[in-house]
């Protein structure tokens, strides 16, 4: 199907168009989305045939998690601290920082999310290829932190994208982030390709 897109030329036209997108996203996402829980009920009716295949694919997905970073504020430098020489997340195979969301499968979002930034994060999440997970890093990402009551701040990323793992702290220490990643890896290990289409 062909999307006809009228050419937006003048910058005021573009800004009004973007302002409208921000306004209706703000109106539509007042309450948080539910966290994905499909990996919970899967532990009950395991399909014997697929256990080894599940284990193999989950091991592969777990060991090579490629993050795309959606960082806005201070947590950027704690994630960079975590991926630098001292707390090296490359040991877990996460060091390939793919700047393009198509190839990434983990969205690490940290820092204060403002309403003007929300449509960008939503589009980034939708561009990512399917088995994808989200880590909300830092107090601002979980609930808006000390800026939660400001007029332009989204109280938490889960209003915009379903979040898998919350990493507390403002900013969280690199060790906390590594613990969060370890939790995510345990969560991935319980996925099954039988119902691999996650109900987002």
């Amino acid at each position, binding site marked *: 199907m062909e999307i006809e897109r009228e050419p937006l030329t003048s910058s005021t036209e573009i800004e009004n168009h973007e302002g409208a997108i921000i306004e209706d996203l703000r109106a539509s996402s007042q309450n948080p989305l539910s966290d994905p829980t499909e990996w919970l009920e899967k532990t009950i009716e395991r399909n014997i045939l697929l256990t080894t295949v599940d284990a193999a694919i989950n091991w592969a997905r777990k060991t090579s998690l490629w993050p795309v970073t959606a960082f806005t*504020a*201070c947590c950027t430098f704690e994630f960079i*601290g975590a991926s*630098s*020489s001292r707390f090296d997340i490359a040991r877990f195979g996460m060091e390939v920082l793919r700047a393009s969301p198509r190839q990434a499968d983990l969205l690490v979002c940290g820092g204060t999310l403002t309403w003007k930034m929300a449509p960008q994060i939503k589009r980034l999440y939708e561009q990512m290829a399917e088995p994808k997970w989200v880590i909300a890093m830092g107090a601002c990402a979980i609930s808006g932190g000390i800026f939660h009551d*400001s007029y*332009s701040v989204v109280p938490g990323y889960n209003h915009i994208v379903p979040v898998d793992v919350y990493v507390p702290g403002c900013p969280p220490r690199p060790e906390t982030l590594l613990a969060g990643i370890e939790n995510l890896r345990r969560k991935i290990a319980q996925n099954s390709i039988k119902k691999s289409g996650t109900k987002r």
Partner: protein
Amino acid sequence: MTLATEQFILNIGPLHPSTHGVFRMRVTMDGETIQDVEPVFGYLHRGLEKLCESHTYKQNIPITDRLDYVSAINNNWPYVMAVEKLAEIQVPLRAEYLRVIMGELQRIASHLLAVGSLMNDMGVFYTAFMYMFREREKIIDLLEMVTGQRLLYNYMRFGGVSMDFPAEFIPALKRFLNIMPSYLDEYDSMMADNEILLSRTKGIGILTPEMAVNSSASGPLLRGSGVKWDLRKDAPYSVYDRFDFDIPTGNNGDCYDRYRVRMEEMRQSIRIINQAIEQLPSGKEKVMVPLRIRPPKGETYSQIEAPRGILGCYIVSDGSTKPYRCHFRAPAFINLTLLQELLIGQKLADAIIIFGSIDLSMGEVDR
């Protein structure tokens, strides 16, 4: 003859690997050269100044930490100095020295990050960045020894600082100050005469001194173009007039000079800290001040030389426990007025380098 090429609009968007945060430039390009730049701010606008109006004076200190989160201690300084000037609080001498030492340590860490990410934009695949971050981790260990935090310290209070140095801090600081100059020489030898780095930064993004002053740039951007203006020397606050150090300035204001100014400033900061350690007086590290301080009615402005430029804080108080108005003069925000002036006519690859050499942190730009 010129080819009839069609221009196209490219979004160097909020989530770009080298925009140092969420900053968006709507760039109209003709092939690789940039015809027009339209910066879009506000992706990290947390309404910080409105927030300051609804919190008491002491609650605002952690909020100022989040302003320029790369050098968090320097953000508290102007806010705390302004309230002290309003409420006439006398800061003990030892507290001033503690503030100078921590402020200068934070300046080295911030410059390390600025130069490291400039190397990243140039394509050195994270190697220079990792080595600079290794040094920054050493400084963060020192700061954590005093404040217990890694990035946002909430260190300064009205009338002094929150915690004195623990016993093992000064020896650790001395060890760090001995090895740091050798690391800086190592970076210089690796990068300063690297042929590709020279050809990528020399003569690119030239900023004339008149234009720099006229567009109220400050910090390494201003000193890179040869204007010798540093608040620590020209309008000395706290105890800076007791140290002798010199102000590095570039001569033709291109990206290479800004790189040299930042490297040189790190060496000067080491000199300052060494002198501060020798002259460190004994005494209390802070004066007891009531928790819900009520400064008298009035307004003050105080400013310091933050790593990115002149960071000022303008407070209006109406005698209540909450500031009536609290405005921060953010150097990175004002340095960005030069964006069109510097980027138009450059190639895309150069624009990324020039943008990296301006060195901004978005918390300060959008407040």
